[in-house]
């Protein structure tokens, strides 16, 4: 299975608007906590990259 960089949610939104007509509403939302969560996940990915330098041996 290949990776994809597609932004899929707007495609689904479009189809759902067709399905629900006037029942579909829109709302604009300010997204909070991106900085805090970004730091947390950056550390996971950094640790994963750094593990390539590991010298641990299990026997």
């Amino acid at each position, binding site marked *: *299975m*290949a*990776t*994809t*960089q*597609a*932004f*899929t*949610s*707007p*495609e*689904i*939104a*479009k*189809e*759902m*608007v067709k*399905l*629900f007509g006037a*029942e*579909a*509403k*829109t*709302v*604009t*939302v*300010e*997204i*909070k*906590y*991106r*900085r*805090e*969560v*970004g*730091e*947390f*996940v*950056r*550390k*996971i*990915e*950094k*640790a*994963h990259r*750094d*593990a*390539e*330098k*590991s*010298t*641990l*041996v*299990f*026997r």
Partner: protein
Amino acid sequence: MDAHRRAASTSVDVVPIGSAFSCFDYVQDHFDRHNAIHRCFSLGRSFDMRMVTIEDIAAQGFVEEENVEIKAYYPDHQMTGLKRLAFWRKPFASAAAIPELGNDDLIGYAIAKKDHVPSCGTHRWHIYEAGFRKYPHPHNCVPGLKSITVRVSGKEFDLPAVVYCQQNGLNKACAHVAVRSLLSRHVKAGDVSYRRINEIAAKSCQGTYSPKDGLDVPQIRAIFRETNIAFRDIDYVEEEKTDKAIRDTHPFQKFLYSGIESGCGGLLGFRLAGPKAQLDRKHIIPFFGHTFNKDTWVPDADIAYFNVGGGVGYIPSESWTSSFLGHDDNFGPNFCVPRLYVRPEQADYVVELLKDAVQYSGAHAEAVAIPFLYSLYPTLASFAPKEKWLRRMATWAHPKMQKAILRAVAIARDEYLRDLASVRDWDGHGERADVVEVLQKLLPEILWVVEVSIPQLFPANERKVGDVILNPLITFDENNPVDFKLLLLVRVPGHYFFVESVAGDTPTFVHIPSQFTSHIPLLKA
């Protein structure tokens, strides 16, 4: 690939387990008091075993391949015993009755092998592999459990189990057997022989490779990569050189639990403790299941809150896990290892295996769900006066409360949508078929589903109020770690939200009604 499990027998011994039978005596007399073989008999006892069959079998498939490999390292090697033990819960008179037995009668099996190498003083049994069913209690969870086919006295049986393997100090150490245990249950990799594992390890070795000396982390990583298994790992020793707090901020339990919940499993490498432990000796074991203790005190005591950083957090579903289920090649299969027993300073390495082409960890997915879930609070609160389950959810997902319970599960789209189409909420409502059809057409083949629940509902009912669904195929962007492209949808009681567009850093959501206005069951693996 499983010829070693289907090998024909040259003799069959049938031993009834009456009150006079002693596992201690039998293992002492026939298997030199071998501890892990005794553990197999103990597991049989726990299932009220009534019979054991012991067959002499020929070395076939991977076992035959192993003998060739050992001989290349030790030319004086001889295999002096190969026995297949099967443990039964139904009594029978003789081997002639075995074809009448069913899969449910089989508790487990073990292939015990004795290697003789005079040049290094080796003459001992080890368990080439074994498999035992899990306890039937529903709170003993092994997500993604598959069946192993094993032949006993000419008949093949299917046994739901995770392969246990043991080192022999010749061509495999603890790391080899831990890795093979998890590889054997992974869809794409299938079963992998030690020769293949050693070929990959030798290629990525700096210097002369000797399998009895174990595997280092780059070799373990090379094995997963060569067998096309995605993973995330942390070497805490390496990482704490630049981040002193890493063991606390990114605890190993989160990564193990996430691999387990997605049916892939995880590895934990740790320092041994105890009076005889050598400080530089490190052991690694595989985990594939967990217990679920619905009465645990931990979440209520307010110590389960997981702080992602900057005062942003949630209650992880792993808070209700008392023990991880795994194998320890030193001691045998299917052990419960208390989740908090291995102290953070002892845990040096963790690997979370990922499903298919998933690009990031379950801990990563849970964290990314937070901004979308909590930022929707004002909108949810505006609907809430008239919608009681939305109100209950919004209370716990309030940015000042942050006590939503989150559980990340990587799952195939089709499996998720089969569940969505078939479940009913507490009031008996099912989802609209045309909504499911649109999702079937547009969602990617695999999903990170971050299930959202609330206190009392999660442990007692094992149900949820919503899902934040993320695209697991989006690769990590260092400059935009919480990319809006990651979000596929948010489902809450009575509503779905989809990103329609993004202006700068502000998305506009389309929201439509959902037929689920209360809670639905958690996903079951």
